């Protein structure tokens, strides 16, 4: 035992290797390996007559993505992801700010648990719970009836593009469920970022003549921005890839996740499914590059 620790003491490199070997193996083989397999498959194509995958390099599969119906899927999904991200940021910020700067130590612990509590239950359970809440005979309609708000709900549901026969069968319902499900992923990073802003900075701003609104704009928001970006990476990418919520709550119009799911499933069109998957990957890379340009990672 003693000799072993002496061996490692003299060779710090071996310690590094020992610590990193398992995660590195996982990263290289399982994670990057499957990403590479995905990339490779997206350059193959499906022979329509035989229904077999032809392992021959082509850009044809990517060309299929450019069909209006498929572009519609990308647009719809990215639009939803953006709407969910912005909404979550707006909802999360005040709450995170309260937790980070005003709540007592005790209350902070309780609030933190309250925020993360939904993550303890199954994601599927929560989605189906929303399906029940939003359905035509659900609890939400009951409240709408109670307060005689039916015209408002009907008006909302008759909006072209985002409406539907009921909340549970419309993009609006999907939007509500997405916002709820990803909200903790937005609150926690913003709260962490705000907690790292020393109180003296806010006092300094106020001391130099800035009203609270000016302090918010000039000091709090820029310093919390990396947290907002970190949170938005979660909400944005999770919405991009999700297929459970659109399947359970939406209408028949596909989202990226559903497209991938159906192409790799019954139709066996692995190349097209792979090409679809590369979509979110590329969108996220662009998103991260843009975030970096905005200086979101300067503080890391």
């Amino acid at each position: 035992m003693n000799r072993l620790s002496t061996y490692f003491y003299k060779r710090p490199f071996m310690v590094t290797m020992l610590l990193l070997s398992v995660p590195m193996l996982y990263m290289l083989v399982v994670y990057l390996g499957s990403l590479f397999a995905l990339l490779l498959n997206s350059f193959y194509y499906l022979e329509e007559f035989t229904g077999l995958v032809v392992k021959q390099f082509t850009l044809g599969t990517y060309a299929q993505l450019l069909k209006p119906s498929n572009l519609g899927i990308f647009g719809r999904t990215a639009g939803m992801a953006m709407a969910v991200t912005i909404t979550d940021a707006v909802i999360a910020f005040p709450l995170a700010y309260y937790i980070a700067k005003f709540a007592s130590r005790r209350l902070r612990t309780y609030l933190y648990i309250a925020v993360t509590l939904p993550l303890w239950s199954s994601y599927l359970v929560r989605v189906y719970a929303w399906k029940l809440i939003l359905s035509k005979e659900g609890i939400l309609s009951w409240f709408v009836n109670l307060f005689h708000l039916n015209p408002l709900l009907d008006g909302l549901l008759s909006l072209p593009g985002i409406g539907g026969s009921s909340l549970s069968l419309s993009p609006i319902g999907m939007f509500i469920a997405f916002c709820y499900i990803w909200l903790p992923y937005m609150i926690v990073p913003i709260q962490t970022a705000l907690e790292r802003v020393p109180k003296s900075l806010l006092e300094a701003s106020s001391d130099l003549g800035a009203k609270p609104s000016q302090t918010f704009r000039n000091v709090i928001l820029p310093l919390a921005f990396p947290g907002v970006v970190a949170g938005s990476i979660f909400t944005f990418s999770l919405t991009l890839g999700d297929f459970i919520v659109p399947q359970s709550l939406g209408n028949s119009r596909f989202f990226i996740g559903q497209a991938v799911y159906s192409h790799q499933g019954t139709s066996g069109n692995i190349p097209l499914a792979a090409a679809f998957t590369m979509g979110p990957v590329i969108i996220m890379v662009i998103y991260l590059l843009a975030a970096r340009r905005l200086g979101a990672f300067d503080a890391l």
Partner: protein
Amino acid sequence: MTNPAIRFDQVSRHFGDVKAVDAVDLEIHDGEFFSMLGPSGSGKTTCLRMIAGFDRPTSGSIHLYGQEVSDLPPYERDVNTVFQDYALFPHMTVGENIAYGLMIKRVSKEERMKRVEEMLELVQLAGFASRKPSQLSGGQRQRVALARALVNHPKVLLLDEPLGALDLKLRQQMQVELKSIQKRVGITFIFVTHDQEEALTMSDRMAVFNQGRIEQIGSPSDVYEKPASSFVAGFVGTSNLIGGEVAQRITGSDQKFSIRPEKIHLGSAADVLTESMYKANGTVRDVIYLGLYTRYLVTLDDGGDLVVIEQNLKTTSMDVLKARGQKVVLFWEKDHISRVGG
């Protein structure tokens, strides 16, 4: 008679049961360098924060040049603060940090740039405007924090232990510099510190805080030479406190008095004493040679210990160490003692 820069009338600040500041009366004059000295938790920082507006008094009132400010938020008070941790905005450059107050006041961009340059010159950081605070050393950040506060020409500048994080050399250099900047700009400086030497070096006047109250206000020499209480005598410099029977034998009164170690002469029975002196006999119990001076610990024959400091003008370490165990006579001018209460 003009209004004082700051006036405290019976100001208290309680945090729950803790009386952080307890019925403090205080006047700080226009243009002076005023120090608030005290151990941590003595209420000096809370007083400063109440002047800045970060804290509100539980009772009492604070006036800034005659205007009651107790209920004004910080952004409506004409005072600026140099924070202990500097509190520079990490996402702004040095120039943007300094210009922050001016930007809030909607001063034009050219004017802003001009005044930032002036300030950088004043704090000897010309050419640093485009750097980020993270690229500066502690001493440089300190200067930026000072410039950021001074550029607004506040009526009063508050400094919350601004030199605490600097090393000794830099601290001494900044002490001199701060003092000269204060003279040049003529603004009232209120300086919070727990370092008695710093307060003695820099202040025109100082207040010694203890447990939420002010023990003494006066010039550094007043506070040092004539400490008003045994706390002040002990906190500002080192001091010998003698009371009871021993005091009775030496001075003829049992009231407690303090005498500074450097005021005591170390002699022998052969020395001739004048009427103006007190004397006491004792034995040297310990000698600590400190290069510049030597510290002797003398046990008096009547009981009690006195610390005596003598400069090593002619003596060497060999000479002073021989004094251990010797019988000595201590004597000092009657004027140099300070009667203290409590």
